[in-house]
């Protein structure tokens, strides 16, 4: 036990020094004014909850998460199940799914601009005149980008989970007359529940990285539907609203923690 602790100690020290302590400072700052001199109690939290921009950003972020996570999980699972059946070409397809993850963000942004600009390829192909990034479609472009980028990652995780299911179970089920769908719902899904928890949490955390493309394409103030929590925090930092930023960050972290704990509870019950 002691040996294990000592081996973990350097990394733990790094996590404490560069993650936990700074976060503790953020929590502290959320109860003080901008310069950190005067204690203001819960005033910053009150201000944040009454702030229209925060409510907009939170609503967009929740909506984004609620749309993207189920979509990503479902589509990646379907892709993984289909891939598993592939014999020769399977590894090539697997690599193709991972290519989007390897493309740098700046290149993805360029791609976005080429595709979704008012004079872009999409409008050209279908003779449309939609300004994709400055309309309600912007949200769906963001969703599409998130799915495109993260699908491969989840597919790999699902494949790992699928590989852990013993083939004998399927054989036994087929002997008993179970069809493919019955096998999927009665054998595959229940055995993938542990993976589902991991994939859901990781996908949820990855959903926050969608900000990068949105910011590089549309700047500090994108279309309202794309305005996420990170946009708000970025802008608050520019305006030196550190008090609100700290309170917002604490609220954000608390929400994520709550969600992860709820998920964990739900899985443990299963």
């Amino acid at each position, binding site marked *: 036990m*002691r*040996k294990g602790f*000592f*081996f973990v*100690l*350097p990394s733990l*020290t*790094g996590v404490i*020094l560069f993650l936990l302590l700074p976060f503790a400072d953020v929590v502290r700052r959320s109860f003080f*004014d*901008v*310069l950190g001199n005067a204690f203001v109690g819960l005033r910053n939290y009150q201000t944040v909850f009454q*702030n*229209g*921009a925060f409510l*907009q950003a939170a609503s967009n972020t929740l909506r984004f998460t609620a749309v993207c996570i189920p979509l990503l999980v479902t589509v990646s699972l379907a892709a993984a199940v289909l891939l598993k059946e592939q014999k020769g070409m399977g590894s090539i397809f697997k690599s193709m799914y991972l290519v989007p993850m390897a493309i740098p963000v700046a290149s993805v942004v360029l791609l976005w601009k080429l595709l979704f600009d*008012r004079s872009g390829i999409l409008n050209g192909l279908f003779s449309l005149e939609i*300004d994709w990034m*400055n309309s309600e479609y912007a949200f769906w472009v963001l969703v599409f980008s998130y799915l495109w980028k993260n699908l491969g990652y989840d597919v790999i995780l699902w494949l790992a989970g699928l590989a852990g299911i013993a083939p004998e179970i399927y054989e036994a089920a087929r002997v008993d007359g179970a069809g493919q769908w019955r096998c999927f719902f009665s054998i595959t899904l229940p055995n993938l529940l542990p993976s589902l928890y991991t994939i859901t949490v990781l996908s949820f955390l990855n959903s926050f990285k969608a900000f990068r493309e949105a910011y590089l394409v549309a*700047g*500090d*103030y994108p*279309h*309202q539907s794309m*305005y996420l929590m990170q946009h*708000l925090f*970025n*802008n*608050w*930092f*520019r*305006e*030196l*609203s*550190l008090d609100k930023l700290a309170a917002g960050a604490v609220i954000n972290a608390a929400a994520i923690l709550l969600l992860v704990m709820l998920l964990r509870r739900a899985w443990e019950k299963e």
Partner: protein
Amino acid sequence: MKKQIRGRVAFALALCMLGGTLGGCKGTRNETAAQEKKETAAPAAMGRYMEEEMMLPDGAAFIYDGKALEDGSIRVAAYNGDVCVYETKDNAKTWEQTLSLNESMGKEDSYAICGALSPDGSLFCQLFEKSGENDYVYKTVKVAPDKTAAEVSLGEGRDILSSLHYIEDGKILAHRMGDTQITLYDDATGETLRTYDPHCGEIQFFGVANDQIITMGQKEAAVLDYESGEVSEFGALEEVLKEDKNNFIMGTSNAYPIVFCAGNKADEVYFCNRGGIYRCLADGAMAERVADGSLNSLSAPNVNLESMQALADGSFIVFARKDADAVMLRYTYDGNVPALPGTELKVYALEEDLTLRQIVSNFQTRNPEYYVNLEIGVTGEDAVTISDALRTLNTEMVAGSGPDVLILDGMPIDSYIERGILADISDVVEKVKSTDGVWENIAGAYEKAGALYAVPTRFKVPALVGKSEALDGITDFASLTDAVQKLRAENDGTEEIVNFPTFYWGLHSLYSACSPALVGQDKGLDTQAVSVFVEQAKQIYDQNEYTFQSDEARSVTRGVSEYGYDFSTVTPLINIIWGQSVMGVCNLANCDALQEIKTVRDILDVGWTPAKLSGKNVYLPAQVAGICSRTEQMEGAKAFVEYFLSKDAQALNSGSGFPVNRAAFSEELQKEASMSTGATIKEDDGSEHEVMLDYQSLDEEEQEQFSKAVELLDTPALTDAVLEDMVLEQTGQCLRGDITADDAVRSISQKMSLYLAE
């Protein structure tokens, strides 16, 4: 046993990692930065080059060339109504004239474009002479030490020489303007001895040092050996020179951004630019700075270099032009003075501004105990945007290493005031108010609860400038649009009704006048005002027949101009005289604009009126100064802001805005006109002729009239760069036809709502 060893190894490794991790951490939060600096600071390094201004010959307007002789005397070729050579043997206390071109040639008004001194005391120069009524010729002349003058034809005819340098007695190097080569001539016969092609494109100027020919192109530099004509052992100097783009930006004529000279050793070359004096060794890969320009006049924008010499005792002489006066600056090493002044004062501005840089240089000279470090957030040399620069600045301020003085143009001033970032500087403003007086309606722009946290040190006046009949009856944006539409019907052949220099600058001028209306009293967005702005701007622009072609002109982002120049301060008068425009919206920033309007009135009925496009008397605050509340140099920062508001500093005005200091403002209006401009007039029959317009000074009535107009100004324009970019980007796209006005208004409203809601 094995388990015990493993345990001990694990423990030891963990301790090492922990030690390494914690070793990088600095002191406790409770230590102030000053205490840290005291405890960790090494003893101050001693010794630096001190500047001394020396006397030049009487009346010397500028210096063509200067030479330090082996016996310690100094020889200069100067212009003072005559082209003369002078020598001093007593360190510039007295000067003796040794040559006079007027005397040698029997003329009265010799004028040379460029000149060079040979080691034996000869003067070689290119003269500029009138030939006939409107014609000019250039001829090259050599005046020998015995005062005999002879014309030496280099075959230049109508070619202007940009630089002349002697490489040795009897041989002179010359460069023709626009040429890509340098030619070596016999100075007695004019025979071409050799040509040098440095392969750096069109050459702007060149210098000579230690048998090296250092050529400065538009963006490339080349160092050739005089004997071989090939790249020399000082080839690395090329890369060093290319690193600073300011080395290629020419200032006034006969003055250069960089000058060169030989060192006392054959393997040394020195050069001098705004950064200071540098030494480069043969085969060296970099240049060593021996004198820091930021601690003396070399960094001042109003100083343009002409020539430099290294003296035998290790000091340097630099001949330069300070504004319109020739100066000789001597730099001598003093080992008893600290290498840097004891106290550093950090001044931060988002964008470059030559007037600010000049003020910093002057303050530095007057207060040698301070080392003023001017930092510019957006230089244009990298991809840093204003938002990025603000975040970096905020990080530094929160970490306690932020600047002492902030020039708040483009920054979220109200936000900084609300968050207690800025200190109260009412006492500084009161001091200036009690001595010179200030425009209180301008200086109080950012007053909150009786305290002043930021003060505009200058201001610009949004104005409509144009033909008088066109300006009649324009009282707001709607009446401007109506007037423009009416003028379009009456001026069929005119390309522009309202002059737009580029998309950005045209819109910036309109925005300056309208911005206060876009945000309501409750700090919320006024959607109606945004709609009016976009639609009216579109209607006005659509009346212009001229369409921008270049990407730069069509850009709706500000970009970064090399000198931080604000093109919205340029009046449209030249375009109006030419017949291309009827009027324009601009920001009046100095007396030159008013003098220009008065001057043009002699040939055309033009005038100006405040641009009350938002229905209010708007002014544009400029060079808004504030002091960071967490500064440790409060005294120095206040001294700097006080100097910033002083008459001395406010008298400097290269288009940055009218002074808020009333005494300086009065002097600005009273200043004698010295500028002139050429304009082309197109007659009704299609013929054209050029006119030269010498600006006229304002009389008392005109000064009073303008002062009364300034008294009425009561509404500061919005200066937040993020907000402005938001509005102009969408409006520009609408003007370009990329999006409709409705889309632009919707987009601006959405973005502004988010911005204001934050």
